[in-house]
């Protein structure tokens, strides 16, 4: 007899309910495989989001048994306690339908934190030589691999409590640019992350680093921003 999983999937928008599906258990199976099986075999109206399936694009994050996870790299054998899975949309983001959340607030905050690179030179000028061993570049390296999956944002208590808080991913991005020697936008960026809802709103609960699928540490990036903005404010370089 084929072994099965009892899978509860969130159906509906903000108002909805969990619906149970029986899904064949495979020897080697990710949570995304389970969701895809339901969509292809049980209910074609199920909405969810994915693209690369290999942990690069950051589009398939969902809440799995209460924890935000990247579903394409989460094996069922690791998380299905007693053959049961409860899969819902990410927390702290508006639900569009079923397992798909609206990521617009997440990326708007990325922009509010001045997360876009501000070039300091034109393409006619020579490119800076940046030593991989420099302190700045090491700080960038530690934070740069973010894939914007939204897991940290969904895990963050401060995001849940304060709708104006920029969140770990946006601040982590700002930290990579603050340490980028080529960037010319740091005064405005530091002012943006020093305002209400910026880095100082972080309580250092560290849920972001606990849940980050890439084992990044946004709390450390935010701590760096706190130090950098404090120094800039005391020197009079930024105003509120």
């Amino acid at each position, binding site marked *: 007899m084929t072994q099965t999983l009892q899978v509860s999937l969130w159906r509906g928008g903000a108002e909805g309910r969990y619906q149970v599906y029986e899904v064949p258990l495979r020897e080697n199976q990710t949570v995304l495989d389970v969701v895809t099986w339901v969509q292809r075999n049980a209910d074609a109206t199920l909405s969810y989001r994915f693209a690369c399936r290999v942990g690069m694009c950051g589009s398939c994050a969902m809440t799995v048994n209460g924890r935000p996870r990247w579903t394409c790299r989460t094996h069922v054998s690791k998380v299905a306690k007693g053959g049961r899975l409860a899969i819902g949309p990410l927390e702290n983001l508006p639900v569009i339908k079923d397992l798909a959340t609206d990521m617009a607030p997440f990326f708007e905050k990325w922009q509010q934190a001045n997360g876009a690179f501000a070039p300091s030179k034109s393409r006619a000028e020579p490119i800076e030589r940046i030593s991989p061993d420099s302190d700045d570049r090491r700080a960038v390296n530690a934070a740069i691999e973010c894939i914007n999956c939204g897991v940290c944002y969904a895990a963050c208590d401060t995001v849940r409590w304060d709708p104006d808080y920029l969140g770990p991913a946006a601040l982590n991005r700002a930290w990579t640019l603050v340490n980028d020697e080529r960037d010319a936008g740091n005064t405005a960026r530091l002012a943006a992350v*020093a305002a209400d809802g*910026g880095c*100082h709103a972080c309580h250092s609960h560290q849920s972001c680093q606990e849940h980050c699928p890439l084992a990044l540490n946004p709390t450390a990036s935010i701590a760096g921003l706190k130090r950098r903005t404090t120094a800039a404010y005391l020197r009079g370089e930024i105003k509120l």
Partner: protein
Amino acid sequence: MNVRLYIWQRTSAAIMAPLVVVHLLVIFYAMRKGFSAAEILSRTRGSVAWALFYGLFIAAASVHAPIGLRTILAEWTPLPARMRDVAVIAFGVALAVLGFRAIAAVVLS
């Protein structure tokens, strides 16, 4: 929370940290000695040093506590920002008034 409030909060915390230790040690000392209120007052009346010690303590606490309360109100209540800020400023002023009044009552009387 923004960088200005952050600096005020951290600075006031740094000022209070050693003061809290002294405050607790004095409480332990007074308890161990079994001092009555009258005996404590006899030691503190007219003391400029204690007035300065607790004056600094109250000034720091009156800055520190409202900033933390502001964050709690922002995260846990639907109070509009302006009303929240007015409420915590009033709380800070109340702390300062009550504290300095207590110092005046103990040290100056």
